């Protein structure tokens, strides 16, 4: 980065940081003004699962079979043992194996 850009780069980073903090704190802040009715509470309680599915689905579709197998293996491991670490390892193993075989 050039000398003239030096301050500019830092300014840009500060702007990015402020924008991200607004997202991190904004939802929490805003909910102070929304009454926590039973309905609002239901929507908020339903969010975690929906965020997970909405995040993961497009990735699975984009990455194809290895990602699908990884998710299935992780889900199965989680169902059987209820162990996060085991589930992640099972998922990674499934994806790595699928990629190795599908490419080869």
């Amino acid at each position, binding site marked *: 980065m050039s000398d003239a850009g030096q301050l500019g780069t830092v300014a840009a*980073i500060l702007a990015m940081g402020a924008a991200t903090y607004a997202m991190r704190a904004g939802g*929490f802040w*805003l909910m102070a003004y929304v009454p926590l009715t039973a309905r609002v509470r239901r*929507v*908020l309680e339903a*969010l975690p699962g*929906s965020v997970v*599915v*909405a995040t993961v689905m497009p990735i699975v579709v984009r990455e194809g079979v290895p990602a699908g197998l990884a998710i299935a293996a992780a*889900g199965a491991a989680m169902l059987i043992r209820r162990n996060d670490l085991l589930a992640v390892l099972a998922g990674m193993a499934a994806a790595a194996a699928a990629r190795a075989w599908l490419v080869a």
Partner: protein
Amino acid sequence: MTNARSAASVRPSWSLDGLRLGAMLMAPALPGMMAFAIAIGATEARKGFAPIEAALMNLLVYAGASQMVAMEAWPQQLTLASVSAVALLVATVNARMLLFGASLRPWLGPLPAWQIYPLLQLTTDPGWIICMRYRARGGNDAGVFLGGALLVWVAWLATTAAGYLMGALIADPRKIALDLVLPIFFAAMLVPLWNGHRRTVAWAVAGAVALATERLIPGWWFVIVGALAGSLAEAFLEEARDV
């Protein structure tokens, strides 16, 4: 759920045990996060950011996907307009965090502002999902949030710096599926979150709407649109049952 509701107005406690539990719950998400952090650090070096600039970005923005997107779209000339555009781009990638914060309100709302607002700077995807799961089981120790968050924070700053220094030495993280660890961890969380067929329907809605949104609208809106559609569907189904 009953636990969480009846304890809604009780101010969360802070304890060392909570810190430890949070760090323990977070551990499975670390390998994938660190692989990603190495890639971010390497990209910062390749794009010509000075060490102090890279460190500042990792510290202040502290959201890998948005940093990657911003660096790909980094303007040639930093003007007020182009800097605003980059900040806006970063905000859209991170807009899902609005939902994280909103859903933390019923639990952490009773905390004083000076405790919660600094803590929110440490919000991450795995950190949030861990908190929601812990809370749904009736837990009420804010130390769990902080403990998990501190572990990720330290690991993130160390690994992005390592990535910056090592640059292109990294072997292909795709080979051992490191790029998929976060989605795998996320998906595994669905098992404890599942609680009946209404949720299955809501998740199907979330997935379908996310896929459709990804096709129709460029960018990262699919997370927020899909998630809202799914949770509105679930709330609607719950009310239909209660009536």
